[in-house]
């Protein structure tokens, strides 16, 4: 294979592995703050127990996010030098602000948040939690701003083939940025609520009926039930925004070849790009027109208008369907669970069994969503400015193949170890129940020894 394709797979593998962990830490920071604030308000130690269980998951996820993030900051240079050479004047400051304002905020206060409960006052510990949660969200803000600018670039001019910023406000708040940011933050919220719900369901199945389990379970289920309809609405709005600014991506998502009215919604198909048609179509008449234009006769863009300048259809079409499918599943599961928890104050065993694998549904939907939007941007790296082909570096294909193979093995092993630890932590929490000692909470005399 050529270095371009290998470099793309390598970056894709890297960023796919990376996003799994920010998707958890962004929202988990706020959930931990919620646990902490509930504890501060009620003095109920079960909240703190939930906090200590999940702060371990946070620490591990954060570490995985840091190391895979470091990798990416190097890969811009090792594999994609053309990217920074062309748009460095814009990508640079956005990345710099991410590192400066956000990354440091998280990294420096993480120590206090993780290990400082008995070393600083409760107020400072809560503040550290706020700063870490704020830092992760700020990280997301800058990265999404850059990614969205690559999708819908504005506020710059080209001089000698190099982009120069003319309007920073327009660059940061570019047309797709608010939609993508909201969509991603909600995705993170859903990822975390299903993870918490799923692992709590696992504890439930193992007979754990402790107060901290109930608190975590309810937090996960109710958060998911509230967020999922908002996410479906936000996703729809994001789609309409894409229709306006990147119609070829929408055409690929819908596998619609010809521009025209009364476009059906395709439920299943195998898009064939060579023949420029779909095989084995199952459709709802006028569906796509109704969703995208809110009228049966609404005109939906077709791929044939963008021949040679549209993304590969098959992966975009299917990634989008996986994301939407998982979203629907999330709606069904979270609302059923919320119903049982609210009305019956119990969880049917079958539902608990479903919730355990759904712990990873957020990851699946997040990845599928990012594949939709990132592959949907091809063949451009920065829409209309820089093609992916023109950004790849001079590194030999054999080098890239070697590093790619090792990265893939490494990531697979780390992922297995990570999931193993999550299950181990959940089962350990299930075994301990409410009986594990909480020296920092229970024993007030011990709680705040001054650091010497």
């Amino acid at each position: 294979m050529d270095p371009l394709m290998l470099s793309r797979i390598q970056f894709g593998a890297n960023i796919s592995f990376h996003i799994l962990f920010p998707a958890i830490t962004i929202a988990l920071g706020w959930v931990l703050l919620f646990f902490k604030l509930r504890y501060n308000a009620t003095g109920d130690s079960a909240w703190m127990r939930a906090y200590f269980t999940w702060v371990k998951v946070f620490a591990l996820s954060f570490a995985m996010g840091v190391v895979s993030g470091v990798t990416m900051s190097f890969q811009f240079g090792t594999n994609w030098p053309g990217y920074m050479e062309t748009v460095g004047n814009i990508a640079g400051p956005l990345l710099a602000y991410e590192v400066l304002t956000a990354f440091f905020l998280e990294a420096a206060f993480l120590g206090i948040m993780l290990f400082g409960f008995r070393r600083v006052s409760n107020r400072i510990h809560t503040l550290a939690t706020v700063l870490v949660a704020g830092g992760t969200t700020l990280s997301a803000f800058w990265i999404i701003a850059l990614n969205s600018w690559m999708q819908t670039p504005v506020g710059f001019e080209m001089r000698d083939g190099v982009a120069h910023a003319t309007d920073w406000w327009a660059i940061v708040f570019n047309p797709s940025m608010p939609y993508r940011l909201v969509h991603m933050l909600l995705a993170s919220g859903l990822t975390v609520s299903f993870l918490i719900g799923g692992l709590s369901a696992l504890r439930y199945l193992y007979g754990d009926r402790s107060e901290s389990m109930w608190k975590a379970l309810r937090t996960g289920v109710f958060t998911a039930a509230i967020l999922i309809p908002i996410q479906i609405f936000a996703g729809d709005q994001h789609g309409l925004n894409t229709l306006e600014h990147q119609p070829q991506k929408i055409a690929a998502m819908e596998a619609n070849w010809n521009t025209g009215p009364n476009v059906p919604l395709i439920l299943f198909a195998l898009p064939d790009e060579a023949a420029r048609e779909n095989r084995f179509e199952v459709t709802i008449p006028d569906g796509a027109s109704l969703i995208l234009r809110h009228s049966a006769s609404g005109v939906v863009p077709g791929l044939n208008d963008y021949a040679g300048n549209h993304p590969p259809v098959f992966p975009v079409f299917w990634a989008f369907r996986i994301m939407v499918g998982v979203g629907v599943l999330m709606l069904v599961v979270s609302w059923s669970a919320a119903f049982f928890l609210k009305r019956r104050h119990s969880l049917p065993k079958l539902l608990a069994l479903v919730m355990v694998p759904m712990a990873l549904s957020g990851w699946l939907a997040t990845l599928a969503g990012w594949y939709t939007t990132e592959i949907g941007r091809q063949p451009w790296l920065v829409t209309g400015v820089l093609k992916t082909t023109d950004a790849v570096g001079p590194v030999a294909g054999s080098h890239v193949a070697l590093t790619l193979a090792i990265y893939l093995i490494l990531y697979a092993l780390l992922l297995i170890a990570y999931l193993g630890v999550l299950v181990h932590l959940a089962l350990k929490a299930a075994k301990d129940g409410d009986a594990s000692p909480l020296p920092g909470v229970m024993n007030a005399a011990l709680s705040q020894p001054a650091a010497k």
Partner: protein
Amino acid sequence: MTLPWPTLLPLIFAGLMGLAILIYVILDGFDLGIGILFAVAEDAEQDTMIAAIGPFWDANETWLVLAVGLLLVAFPLAHGLILSALYIPVFLLLVGLILRGVAFDFRAKVPAGRKQRWNRIFFLGSVIASLAQGYMLGVYVLGLDFGLAGMAFGALVALCLAAAYAAMGAAWVIYKTEGELQRKAVLWLRRALVLTALGMVAVSLATPLASPRIFDKWFVWPAMLYLSPLPILSAVLFLWLWRQTFHLPKADDRHALTPFLTLAAIFTLGFAGLAWSFYPFVVPDRLTIWQAASAPESLAIILAGTVVVLPIIIFYSFYAYRVFGGKATDLTYD
């Protein structure tokens, strides 16, 4: 004398990048070093050593992201050139950092039986990352030379930098622990110092010999006179620290932090020497900082944020170090 902004900005960013690298080398140096020292420490000691770096390593590693980030955003041409030339060592560095970063967390959370495995991975990752950094430094010092000489020199610097990090790690252990482990760390420090000194001499000799341009920067009168404090002071500090290792630990734990600070001072002096050698190039003899710099308006907007944020970062880093000051105790979340 007034300098126009397009001249001044790349200079400021070169300085900031240098500062970030120096802080990274000093801070991540001690926690990488502790990973290296895992090889000679016993089980219980390993837990204490981890507790000595637990709250800090995330932030320490972030300085590397800042340094590479500044290279990326302020000198994009150099970033591409240097990193694609160093493709494989960069890759090894990353694998090392990934392994040690996650091993750090995994070892504390896996079932007890698997802890040993992650301890080994922590050691391995730390060694790989240190060696890769040293190798890159060596190859870079010789102007990205991938001939046999360049690679051999790279390998030598790799070993010496790993030793230097081990020395930093030992110095940190002296500061953060007491009793038997502290006494052991003094011995580790003494041994690591020998290789560290060797490495600094090797780099100091190779740099001017490899490049006539650098030779001329150092060995002309009166520059020689102004520069002489760098090597002399380094040598004095080395010797003094070497003698100290025969008297530590002292009663009441006085001077426990002194070895670490002395090493940091030596690193700073060595770094200043390197900076003087390379100035004004960011890629030796190929690309000056002005040729590699981003557009001035982009640099200006980054600088605006940097001057506000950097002091805050430094301030709260100090705060975090103070909160976790004193001897290392067991790391607990609750």
